[in-house]
């Protein structure tokens, strides 16, 4: 149908890693049950000093950045017309689907009054001044868009006589024809809410160290989301490639690497430039908690730049390392600005409890399980035309 063909990977679904992941999901399910029966305090260490804990920061703020692969690739492929990367689109999209859907799940666990969650959609409760309101609506819309964008993968798996009988063929054609609207929305919505995830922090004022608190937060968040998007595509593809012996895309990534490196350079320039301009750069070198976190972040941001701009970027191994570094840098940046560099005063301290972390881990495990399930059963990964639609042994 399109120039790029995808095929299901096939193979056993219930494997040893799948089962191990399942155990973690079950553990998380137990604690989630407890959370709903006895309240959040029963499983988490969140407090009124640190009301935003790992569930939001790891699963939503960082989780959606990991889910930005779809956003970043769509921008590159459809908006900047770099069709060469097309084979990477659908796996990236799938990563986005689960990154965002499970972030939504984490939000439902985290909401203190989840039964009122639909109030977000009630016009009479709308509060357009609220950054969170915008983030919530955007994320909800984007999850819908992601699933619609991914819908053709389902349709391709449905037997054609079945499709014809229920007119799903027409739906497929319709989706394909108007896919560009979805693509445009799929770029606009993450642009809006990823930048807004940064705007959210402006309300913290003095609670957040000036090393992070700047009016450029939205742009910094947007750039870091895009960079992490490319990072996650590289990481995902490399791992899948290694694990399932699919054709290597290292050459493709060597070019993508320059895009990611450019974004990182822009990020660092903006961040350091802004700090220098505001006169807060000195805080980075005083050797305290905030300063050291900032320096670690900077090193993690610099490392992938050097790798990706050197000849090493052609090597799969270095690509992998750079991607890991990049994702660690972006994650730490988000973790710091939401939690670790936040000082609410009044004597509050916070470290997540074990059950709290296990819920987050369970959500991530569920994400990986679903990803494995989908790439094995649905046409997600790029494959040769000859094998398309066929279920390999």
């Amino acid at each position, binding site marked *: 149908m399109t120039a790029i063909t995808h095929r299901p990977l096939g193979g056993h679904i219930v494997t040893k*890693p799948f089962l191990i992941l399942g155990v973690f999901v079950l553990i998380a399910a137990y604690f989630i049950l407890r959370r709903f029966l006895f309240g959040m305090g029963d499983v988490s260490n969140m407090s009124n000093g640190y009301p935003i804990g790992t569930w939001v920061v790891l699963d939503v703020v960082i989780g959606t950045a990991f889910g930005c692969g779809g956003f970043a690739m769509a921008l590159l492929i459809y908006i900047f017309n770099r069709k060469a990367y097309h084979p990477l689109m659908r796996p990236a999209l799938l990563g986005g689907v689960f990154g965002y859907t499970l972030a939504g799940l984490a939000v439902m666990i985290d909401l203190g009054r989840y039964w009122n969650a639909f109030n977000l959609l009630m016009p009479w409760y709308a509060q357009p001044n609220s950054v969170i309101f915008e983030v919530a609506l955007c994320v909800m819309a984007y999850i819908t868009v992601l699933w619609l964008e991914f819908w053709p993968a389902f349709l391709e798996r449905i037997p054609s006589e079945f499709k014809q009988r229920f007119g799903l063929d027409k739906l497929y054609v319709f989706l394909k024809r108007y896919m560009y609207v979805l693509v445009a929305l799929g770029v606009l919505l993450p642009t809006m809410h990823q930048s807004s995830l940064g705007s959210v922090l402006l309300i913290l004022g003095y609670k957040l160290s000036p090393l992070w608190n700047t009016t450029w937060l939205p742009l910094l968040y947007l750039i870091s989301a895009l960079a992490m998007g490319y990072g996650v595509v590289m990481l995902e593809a490399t*791992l899948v490639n290694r694990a399932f012996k699919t054709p290597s895309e290292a050459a493709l990534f060597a070019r993508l690497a320059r895009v990611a490196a450019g974004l990182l350079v822009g990020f660092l320039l903006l961040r350091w430039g802004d700090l220098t301009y505001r006169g807060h750069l000195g805080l980075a070198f005083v050797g305290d908690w905030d300063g050291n976190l900032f320096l670690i972040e900077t090193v993690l941001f610099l490392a992938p730049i050097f790798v990706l701009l050197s000849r090493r970027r052609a090597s799969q191994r270095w690509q992998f390392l750079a991607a890991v570094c990049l994702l660690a840098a972006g994650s730490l940046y988000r973790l710091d600005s939401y939690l670790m560099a936040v000082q609410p005063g009044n004597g509050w301290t916070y470290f997540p409890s074990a059950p709290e972390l296990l819920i987050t881990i369970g959500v991530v495990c569920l994400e990986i399980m679903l990803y494995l399930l989908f790439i094995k059963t649905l046409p997600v990964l790029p494959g040769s035309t000859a094998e398309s639609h066929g279920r390999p042994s």
Partner: protein
Amino acid sequence: MDSFSNHDLETHAVQDLDGYRGALGGLTRRQFLKYCTGVAATLGLSSLMGIRIAEAATAAKRPPVIWLSAQECTGCTESLLRAYHPTLETLILDMISLDYHEALCSGAGHQAEAYKAKSMKENWGKFVLVVDGSIPTKDGGIYCMVAGKPILEAVKEAAEGAAAIIGIGSCASWGGVPSSDPNPTHAKPVHEVLPGKTVINIPGCPPNPYNFLSTVLYLLTFGKPPALDAKNRPKFAYGRLIHENCERRPHFDAGRFALEFGDYGHRQGFCLYKIGCKGPETHANCPTIGFGDVGEGNWPVGIGHPCFGCTEQGVGFTKPLHALAKVQTYTPPTAFPAVNAPKGEGVSPAAAAVVAGVAGLAVGAGAMALRGMDGGADSSADQHGDDR
């Protein structure tokens, strides 16, 4: 009374307690020892000290006491007369030799004055001087004349030969009523007219008789005054704020106050702070010792009247009766949360283990993935892949 009036005190061997029934105000030996032990307890001393007190109180030669009255109302003496353990007569007839007291001495006029002079001369340097009332100093002290001379002079003169000086009552301790604004007689407390002398102050209007009795017995027993605070008040009696031991304190802590006399809170026995109780700034043992030996709760706050701060200079007779007290707990109670009290949960071992586990897994998985890349060591990666 009857029983001991028949005895000639001087001829009896005082140490022989068993043969001394009646002279101890009708107490048996056992009762007397119990009483002395009780006094020891009031003073915060061990029960062994009770024996020493008994010995001191029944010593052959009773220590002479000269009691001078300045600008006073005799309330202190009246209060003392209402003591029941021991009764005043036990004190003045068996324990001390009260050689001069204007209200109590049986002689009068020149006879009394002559006996005072004789006693002072004989016991120079050994007698105990007790003063009640404040000393007028204006115009040479002419506003309180006893036996033709200002009391100021009498006090100064007696103080010279006194082994110990006790100022009883608020007037003697810090000026009391006569010293209240506008203080027409320039009334001063005893210690202010006797610079350089230690004057033990037993303030109160009237003071609790047991605070006085205990102090006297301490003096007799140990030959030195009990531990005193900065205002020379015995610490055993004036060491704490009334607020600290008040039976209504829980109501204060819980925010339950009487708002006016006879209202619901007042009838319920709530805290009287809001109607002017000075307990929070007044040092005395009233709530623990009570008055009149008729049982617990018999003291001003106990019966529903706010403390008016008689034992504290600058409070009693100075502050308006229903003005609020300045709460003077030395340090705020620990039950207050601190401004920056540490809150929140730290790192638990389980959480640390989870974090370490995830970190280890990530590093391990990363290393595994790296091994097979760029064509190197393909086999291991293959195995890994097969598992899936």
